[in-house]
């Protein structure tokens, strides 16, 4: 997302004074309605910058008024910006200065006289509605009237007054802030307002931890299992610089009909990529639409078009049983020229699709990925069983689950005793169909739990917010893909040292030879090894 300006057809996030977010797609020449907060023409936001705050002009005028940063801040503080400097700290009372002759010097005003009576508001509901309709000043008018008609207003301490004003402001001010729709803002929007289950209740702090622990960085190749509708994929793509897309002029105008455009046969890049494995025939990456990428109808100029590839579990695990990987019947060139144009195009399309799919599958099976990131409903053990072997040595494994239990179960699969059992008793005994496979290829399994605690920072009223979202705990498993010593010895057959060692019967003092071939002959108690490791 370029944050410079708002471009047509991008998704934006509008935050209302209440804090409630709205996501809108900025289509030119339409009216954007914010319900009771009014409506405004979309053109008023077009090519304007992000992060600004606007008041919606009162009808009949159509448009917005830019609100300055000071004004925004002042309205957030309820006017008490300097309260702290002068203030009395955290109590709802105020020392009144010496100039109140009438009271004979200093006095304390506390909220003890304040009557919390709904009747102290003299405006009736009907009157408020009326004012809302014909009110002016983007809701300011109404708030003003509410303040004026509040009978107990004089009894309020400045703090209480601030709070009251603030509350009314949140409710009635026809104002919004326009924010870029980034992975961070999308995640909190979906979590707070949409269906959090669909994104596995993944919080921003969890996403951040996953990106860091998986060492996601520009240039890497990442294997991803994402059942959060594409949230994890978007987060990775953002880190890889694949999310920003400026549709070209032509694409903008042909918005509707680029479905028929044939995909150009670009060579697939082999770095800075995301390889997604999905459980259904087609991936569910619907959230990518917020970043101008629709997997069903991809914009070919979008970086994700070439850097994101998808395959399903069948294609990875049992490719021979997947019909889409069967080579389409070859039609000889002579016959091909005789075919009708449409048929010929269909043939080529089919051929290209097959070519692309089989390349993606072959590439995935070859492995050598730089990291594995998982956010899944599915059982983690099975996922790891099939994916960890596809990682490079030292690659990081990161798996998120809503439920602590499934992550804990997973961590237990890599316990010291499990590893010892695998080594002692062998694969045949220790392996079970539903397990993780070889536990010795994952080092230092660790579980992380992280949570952000928000604070309210207002002058004199700084404290943690009183409520926060509950729900899924959401924990992250991490481990490192390692190459256990036995495997390594086999893999290193080409080394001079090992050959010599075999020939010599394993009794060489040669430092070099020792370096290469020690692995095979060393008597080791696996138990001890594992003990040392953990």
């Amino acid at each position, binding site marked *: 997302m370029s944050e410079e300006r708002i471009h047509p057809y991008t998704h934006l996030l509008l935050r209302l004074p209440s804090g409630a977010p709205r996501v809108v797609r900025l289509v030119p020449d339409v009216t954007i309605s914010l319900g009771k907060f009014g409506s405004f023409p979309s053109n008023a936001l077009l090519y304007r910058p992000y992060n600004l705050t606007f008041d919606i002009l009162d009808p009949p005028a159509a448009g917005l008024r830019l609100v300055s940063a000071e004004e925004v801040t002042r309205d957030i503080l309820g006017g008490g910006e300097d309260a702290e400097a002068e203030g009395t700290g955290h109590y709802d009372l105020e020392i009144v200065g010496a100039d109140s002759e009438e009271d004979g010097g200093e006095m304390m005003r506390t909220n003890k006289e304040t009557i919390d009576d709904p009747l102290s508001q003299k405006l009736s509901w009907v009157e408020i509605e009326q004012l809302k309709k014909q009110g002016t000043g983007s809701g300011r008018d109404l708030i003003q009237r509410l303040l004026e008609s509040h009978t107990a207003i004089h009894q309020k301490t400045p703090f209480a007054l601030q709070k009251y004003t603030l509350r009314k402001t949140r409710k009635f001010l026809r104002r919004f802030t326009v924010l870029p729709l980034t992975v961070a803002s999308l995640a909190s929007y979906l979590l707070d307002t949409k269906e959090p289950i669909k994104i596995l209740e993944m919080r921003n702090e969890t996403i951040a931890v996953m990106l860091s622990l998986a060492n996601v960085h520009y240039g890497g190749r990442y294997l991803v299992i994402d059942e959060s509708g594409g949230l994890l994929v978007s987060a990775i793509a953002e880190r890889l610089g694949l999310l920003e897309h400026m549709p070209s002029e032509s694409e903008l105008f042909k918005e509707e009909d680029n479905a028929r455009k044939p995909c150009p046969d670009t060579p697939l890049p082999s770095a800075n990529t995301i390889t997604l494995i999905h459980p259904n025939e087609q991936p569910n990456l619907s959230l990518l639409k917020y970043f101008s990428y629709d997997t069903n109808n991809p914009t070919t100029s979008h970086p994700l078009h070439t850097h994101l590839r998808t395959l399903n579990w069948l294609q990875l695990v049992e490719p021979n049983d997947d019909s889409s990987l069967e080579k389409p019947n070859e039609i000889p060139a002579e016959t091909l020229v005789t075919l009708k144009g449409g048929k010929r195009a269909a043939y080529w399309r089919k051929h290209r699709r097959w070519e692309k799919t089989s390349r993606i599958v072959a590439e995935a099976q070859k492995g050598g990925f*730089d990291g594995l990131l998982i956010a899944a409903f599915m059982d983690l053990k099975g996922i790891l069983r099939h994916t960890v072997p596809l990682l490079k040595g030292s690659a990081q494994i990161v798996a998120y689950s809503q439920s602590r239990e499934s992550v804990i179960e997973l961590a237990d699969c890599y316990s010291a005793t499990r590893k010892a059992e695998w080594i002692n008793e062998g694969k045949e005994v220790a392996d079970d169909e539903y397990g993780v496979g070889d536990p010795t290829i994952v080092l230092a399994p660790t579980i992380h739990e992280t949570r952000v605690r928000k604070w309210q920072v207002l002058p004199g009223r700084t404290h943690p917010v009183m409520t926060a979202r509950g729900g899924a705990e959401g924990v992250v498993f991490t481990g490192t893909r390692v190459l256990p010593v036995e495997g390594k010895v086999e893999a290193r057959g080409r080394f001079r040292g090992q050959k010599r060692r075999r020939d010599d019967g394993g009794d060489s003092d040669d*430092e070099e030879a020792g370096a290469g071939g020690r692995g095979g002959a060393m008597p080791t108690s696996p138990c001890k090894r594992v003990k040392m490791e953990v």
Partner: protein
Amino acid sequence: MEPVFVKSLYHSPSLKILSRLDPPNNQQIFFPFPITFTSTPGSGTFDPYNKAKMPETPDPDTTPASNPLPPPSAFLHTPESIPYSSSPSIIHLKRDLLVPLSFQSNGAQAETHDARAAAYSSKGVLNTRFGDFPHSSIVGIPYGSQVRAAPRTNNEQNRKRKRMEDADEGETAEPVSTGFIHVLAPTAELWTASLPHRTQVVYMPDSSFILHRLQVRPGSVLIEAGAGSGSFTHAGVRAAYNGFEFHKERVQKLTDEIERHGLDGLVEIVHRDVCKDGFLVKRMVGEEEEDISPEATAVFLDLPAPWLALPHLTRRARPTPSLPTSTGLTPSPSPGPTTSVGKIGEAVRICTFSPCIEQVTRTVNVLRKLGWVDVEMVEIQHRRIEVRRLNPKGYEDGAGPRTVGEAVQRLKWIGEYREHKRKKNPADSTITTQQNPTEAWKTQNSREKKGAKDGKIVTRIEPEIKSHTSYLVFAVLPREWTVEDEAAAQALVKQTTKSVVNAPVDGNLKGNGKLKWKGETEERPISKRQIKKAEREKRKAAERRLKGEEAVEDKSGPPANEGEGEDVPGTECGNDETEVAG
């Protein structure tokens, strides 16, 4: 203070370019600054990036062999095999015991950038309590490999070591030859866990969230002030950025480190007191060296007094708005990190990192005064969960009973046994008819051999949690929006849309000027009398306004005041009632 170290003449490219390029080009962008490659003959052919990484990519831009590009940092690209390099590999001895170590091919002393690593490693051999590992047995194998110890040679070092160990911890030398280590590729997280601490550092839970919220991504320019030990630096270098540090010795150490790690094309370290001297960087502009803006889009301040540095973070040279005297600031014009006039500016995001709430309130206060919006403060709570199986040992292994049933049974047996003993003559050896309860348990209750899946899975939190690291204050500085900008935007809208709706953005307060209400005014009511007075005025003002409005409405709605308003954040101050229309 003078900047003592200015490196890298390159600037990070914009994101857009990065995302479109294929690897060969990226390579040039990402690693533009030649570093000395400290490899001796024998490993000279090592060029991990070109060699094996992208076999399928056509490589039109391959640089001639005579002028090879430096290999990318191992932090950003895991080499195919462990290289001789100045960049560290991470030796995983056991959980939470990590040692960074770089391998030198000439068998020379490993570079002693870390006292700890140096203690471990001498004469091309890594000595650990898990055994000895000649560097030659490690270099050349893939990262992530498990490495077995070489048979321990009875050299001087080991004898000394053994003496020491025996004396110290009484830790009898384990049969060291069976030990092993894992050699891991460096990552920011592993580095944080193993780096030489020179200051308090920022850990993963905080740094990850900060980078996520600051929207740091390829092409971003990130300022970190107070780079300290470089922990955050390594996490942040997954996007190109600059760092500032003012402690001289630390600067030198960090600079060396960044260079060794092959990150010096991406990280620029400047030695400077940012509170005094701001954030400009020296660049060659034509022939002259000039102080120019680094044009940052993200700022991370890990300083004792971040509010002192904030006034330097402005978009252009203009007098800093006066600040509360408590900050002790002498306002001075200071060009800041973002763009100068002419180029469209991006919003800048900031995070400050302070342990104390007093620091937070001061920072927030200054941020708000300087026109930053969306000020938010959070703290991160993080913990690691340990998983284990409840020991399935029961009473028979000497542990207590595990169930009520077991306890009851045991008590019964004890009673019976005692009874039995009392009846019998202790000298009598026929006691065997009645077993001692512990043994009885063993014979009667012998359990199956315990497997890895026995025992209940239980969890606990790591022994010590960081219950407070620091408070994170986030804020955004929106780009400035001037009358000219607005006019240009409107022209563009007219051009590109059907302009069905003429939609001005009114930056002017005139014609829509009812901006304040009581409770919002700067002078808060002080006494009842004053409140009343203020209210009276208010009411009058409102009446006046209403009249004024009717007049305006007759002229078919408020005029669209494009082009008149001046709405530069930070300049126009909140004077209220006076400007009410009428």
